[in-house]
């Protein structure tokens, strides 16, 4: 590998020897093409006319009134597929095309990344296999159906806890046996180098646009940027636009599930410890021996016992702050945004809103906060209905 892929002590590429050439190949292709004019033009055209970029920065006036300060929503929920995931899939999918790979594989938890990969597989006419925990296959059957409609094969993973981390395990195992013709389209800003860097790059339009839109629409930079963090791809995407603006606070919100004092949460940066999983040194939820814990959270998209290594670094360096919101606060926030703005936010994104709503009365009225509304909540209506039946 050309680079070590480190963010301070975090990151790296802790993988079996057999995967090293495949990662080297992706690293090499990424650095060859990511600034290549033809690649950039092709990707920008897809961002614009396939995915629907740029997305609006929307001043949520009634939500702002409720909070007592200004809230702006970066509307990634309006993208094709309903979430920011398409940004990364277009970028990596195009890279796979340039590399001459014929097959895409991906892991998915809630199904959003699986769906985005299936869409891009159809777009580029590539064979696509989606690895998904068997429990997730059941609870996200609508997304499974959509993936199949796009021509992808969905492989239920029965090992371990039958959720996202096990889907990653099986995708890695499959990749090990098919490294020569297969591109692993990794969904979050985690995993082994070069994925954290690749995913951040392809998600960076969120931050670049948001910064420009702030200057155009508000005339100044925001005071804070808030995003939910599971693996952390939407967060690193929007943070990347503001990392050098020291006056802008960066806040990542993790899932406190039923509470960080229980075992039912996924607040990795809040209460985890440093270890090595899925190719990266980062914070993990684990026991004293290093066995990885199961996680639980109302939004399947945050349900992961690790976190992207750059977030671990931003936490340690103090550049970003990581907080959490529990399931109840998240449902409250979901309902609030529906009622006040007529927007259904994804339960993942509702974590970011939940924390911000909790700042009501604590922030000066001139505060400007930008929330990354990373996805839409249509997929979550059934889950919300179960917890909060509509009267």
């Amino acid at each position: 590998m050309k680079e070590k892929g480190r963010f301070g002590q975090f990151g790296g590429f802790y993988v079996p020897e057999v995967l090293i050439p495949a990662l080297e190949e992706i690293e090499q292709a990424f650095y060859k093409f990511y600034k290549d004019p033809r690649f950039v033009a092709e990707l920008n055209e897809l961002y614009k006319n396939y995915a629907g970029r740029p997305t609006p920065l929307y001043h949520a006036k009634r939500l702002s009134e409720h909070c007592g300060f200004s809230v702006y929503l970066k509307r990634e929920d309006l993208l094709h597929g309903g979430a920011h995931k398409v940004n990364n899939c277009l970028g990596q999918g195009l890279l796979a095309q340039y590399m001459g790979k014929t097959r895409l594989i991906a892991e998915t938890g809630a199904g959003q990344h699986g769906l985005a990969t299936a869409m891009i597989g159809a777009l580029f006419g590539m064979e696509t296999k989606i690895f998904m925990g068997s429990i997730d296959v059941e609870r996200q059957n609508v997304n499974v159906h959509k993936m199949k409609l796009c021509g992808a094969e969905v492989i239920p993973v029965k090992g371990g806890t039958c959720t996202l981390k096990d889907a990653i395990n099986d995708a890695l195992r499959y990749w090990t046996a098919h490294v020569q013709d297969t591109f692993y389209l990794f969904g979050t800003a985690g995993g082994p180098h070069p994925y954290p860097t690749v995913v951040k790059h392809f998600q960076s339009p969120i931050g670049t646009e948001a910064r420009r839109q702030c200057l155009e629409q508000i005339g100044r930079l925001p005071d804070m940027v808030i995003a939910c963090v599971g693996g952390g791809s939407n967060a690193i995407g929007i943070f990347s636009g503001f990392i050098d603006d020291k006056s802008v606070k960066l806040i990542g919100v993790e899932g406190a599930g039923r509470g960080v004092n229980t075992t039912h949460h996924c607040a990795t940066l809040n209460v985890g410890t440093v270890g090595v999983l899925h190719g990266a040194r980062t914070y993990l939820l684990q026991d004293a021996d290093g066995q990885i814990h199961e996680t639980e959270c109302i939004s399947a998209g945050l349900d992961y016992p690790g976190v992207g290594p750059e977030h671990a670094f931003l936490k340690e360096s103090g550049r970003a702050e990581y907080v959490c919101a529990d399931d109840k606060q998240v449902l409250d926030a979901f309902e609030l945004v529906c009622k006040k703005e007529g927007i259904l936010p994804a339960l993942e994104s509702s974590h970011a809103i939940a924390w911000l709503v909790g700042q009501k009365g604590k922030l000066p009225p001139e505060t400007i906060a930008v929330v990354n509304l990373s996805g839409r909540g249509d997929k979550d209506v059934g889950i919300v209905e179960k917890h909060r039946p509509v009267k």
Partner: protein
Amino acid sequence: MKTYAQTFKELKRSAIIPFFVIGDPDYDTSLSIVKTAIDAGADILELGIAFSDPIADGPTIQKADIRALAAGMNIKRALQFVREIKNYKDIPIGLLMYYNLVYQYGVEKFFNDFHAAGVNSVLIADLSIDDADEVLAPAKKAGLETVFMVTPVTNDERIKLIASHTTGFIYTVSTLGVTGARQTLSNMVKPLIKTIKSITDIPVCVGFGISNPKQAAEVASAGADGVIIGSAIVKIIEDNLADKKQMLDNVKNFVAAIKNATAPNNI
């Protein structure tokens, strides 16, 4: 403590190296299984410590990991297990495991404690030669030998680099993919052994996908210094969970058959 070098030198044939997950299906049965394999002719042991997320392993070893963890296996008990095996016979033991377990225990302390218990080497499946800096100095300090993997997609330059950091043996992965029994031996294995042998004198042991005496004999006749058999033998445990006597008999017969098939006058 017997070293790998002494073992290879004494043997004058391919070493038979069965792999077991420590504590599968439970501590006491596991101890009997490993002792049985030693008595049946194992020359070196490859032992795994169960991990929740074994990305280099196929379904058979994954299930063994789950059985061991469910029966209460942890690092402390694994140490005790190694000591008990070592008291039974002075046989070289290589650990094969995942980095996070070593990392949480503390690399130096892990290497010191397990070397003191009788382990010769610790092969970390998800730590490549690129990050060997994290383990080489502590391994040397603890007195451990080093073992790294070479695969069919490792280029010559990298094989040289890997060999230069290896003091025990090169763990040669016979095929692309994870651990698991396979119907036929990969056609990549013979050229790979030849390539490695042309680059280094470090002993070459071959594993992944070797499932029966015939395949073991092929690997031995291709010049491997050791034949590592994992999933095929762990499957015997899985298939006989209800009948421990049968389990031990089958392990004994399987190891003996491998040993016999790879004897110099049979290959």
